């Protein structure tokens, strides 16, 4: 992971739909928030679009803390996307 990239993690059926559990994504100048990152990922292919098609079923964490889509992302962050949790 370089200084200008972020690590992205996927869990549960989002992971399965995308077909990957982890990837390094270059931080484009247009990506300021978690929502921007999500939009950028959706341009990667139909599997991403399917995984993120229902925004109501997508949650995110930045550096292991729950956040909303307007949360900022910076180089070196770990960003995770997952469905609403079902533990307990």
């Amino acid at each position, binding site marked *: 992971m370089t200084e200008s990239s972020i690590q992205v993690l996927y869990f549960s059926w989002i992971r399965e739909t995308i077909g990957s559990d982890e990837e390094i994504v270059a931080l484009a100048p247009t990506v300021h928030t978690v929502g921007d990152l999500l939009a950028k990922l959706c341009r990667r292919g139909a599997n991403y679009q399917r995984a993120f098609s229902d925004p109501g079923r997508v949650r995110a964490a930045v550096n292991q803390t*729950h956040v909303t889509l307007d949360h900022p992302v910076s180089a070196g962050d770990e960003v995770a996307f997952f469905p609403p949790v079902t533990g*307990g």
Partner: protein
Amino acid sequence: MRVVVQADPIDATREYAVVRDRLGGQAGAIVTFSGLMREMGEDGALANMTLEHYPAMTRQELERIAREAQGRWELDEVVVVHRFGTLKPGDEIVVVVTAARHRREAFEAAWFLMDYLKTRAPFWKKETTATGRQRWVDARTTDASAAARWGKTGTRDRPTSANPAGSRRRRGD
């Protein structure tokens, strides 16, 4: 405070006994909650269930939830043990133990911990039926509303008497 995330089966009786023996007369009330894997899923009998989690986040999120409970109630002890990996019907998924001077604090804190954990702890359940079909379990909307009734997190300066059960009333009262 004891927070554990483990693949091994949970021994709820041990978690309780350790708290009771350690407190030895200090606490007047201990509430132990166990969440168990049910044998019937939405699509019929289950063979097993796999709990995926987010290892780097799970433990610290459970610790945040446990600290939040300690900030809201005067507790002698808080224990949260959550399992991951593959479970069979009847297994404990999660065990929460709260000890306090009186029963109200212990009950409220245990219930709060479970409500919060259900909407914040990064676990996802995948069920496998007896016929081999697999399905990700959907989040229950009732879990979100159960968590919401406790109000916002991080409000440690809020007086304990302002928590939900302090003002609860029968419908129609």
